[in-house]
């Protein structure tokens, strides 16, 4: 069960960084109790909905994805800003389309849909099995998604080349 240990380590670090009192025994004891409670609740959830996906390998490869995604966010922010301030020269062209997606595991699909929604100009409306329904503010943004760069990158995170 690597997830349990990852959760405990992560929550402990989170508590220590947020509290800042690293020597007060009362605060540390309260922190330990909170970590134990949160882990217990998470384990209860996991016994019902088993977390079988390749979570750890995806977590370890995040550093290849986020720099690229941040760049995309900056680019699409500029595109949406143009539409806001200069609506005459850059008119919006809203469009809804259903696309196939490459990522296979549940967590990678969640990551993909979240990444689409995080970039301004595109929003995920619905996710069904391998289909994803997207609303885009600009036709160019939709064409970029159809071209599939983001899907390929998320697919790579799963460990498939």
């Amino acid at each position, binding site marked *: 069960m690597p997830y349990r240990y990852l959760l405990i380590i992560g929550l402990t670090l989170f508590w220590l*960084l947020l509290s800042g009192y690293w020597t007060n025994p009362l605060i540390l004891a309260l922190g330990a109790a909170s970590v134990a409670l949160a882990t217990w609740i998470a384990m209860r959830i996991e016994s019902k909905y088993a977390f079988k996906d390749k979570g750890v390998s995806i977590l370890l490869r995040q550093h290849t994805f986020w720099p690229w995604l941040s760049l995309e*966010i900056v680019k699409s*922010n500029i595109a949406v800003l143009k539409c*806001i301030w200069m609506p005459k020269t850059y*008119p919006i062209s809203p*469009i809804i389309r259903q696309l196939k997606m490459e990522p296979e595991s549940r967590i990678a699909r969640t990551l993909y849909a979240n990444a689409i*929604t*995080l970039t*301004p100009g595109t*929003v995920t409306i619905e996710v069904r099995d391998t289909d994803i329904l997207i609303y885009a503010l600009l036709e160019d943004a939709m064409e970029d998604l159809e071209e599939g760069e983001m899907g390929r990158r998320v697919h790579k995170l799963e460990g498939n080349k």
Partner: protein
Amino acid sequence: MTFIIDALSWVCLMMGCFLGISGAVGIFKFDEFYSRVHAASVTDTLCVFFIMAGLVLQSGFTLVSVKLIFAVVLLWLTSPVASHALIRSAYHTGLKPKLKTSRKESAKRGQS
């Protein structure tokens, strides 16, 4: 040195303010629900990032910076979920989006 850091942080803060105001203006300028959500997502992403970056530069290597970075990560992870829930519920209750007006039409609407 402090002058350079101060200047950088002010540039970041001003950029953040500009982006936040643009998001607010966009919410009023766009003409229907679905496109307004996009204007709000400008505020969600880069505006938050720039304001937090400016504040991190102000506070330096302290626990406060760590908390600010946590706030950015939290917002970047949760705001897509919120806008997805909003748009999905609107779509399922049958609010029809206005789709793809041609360039001419939207140019006309911009003038009137």
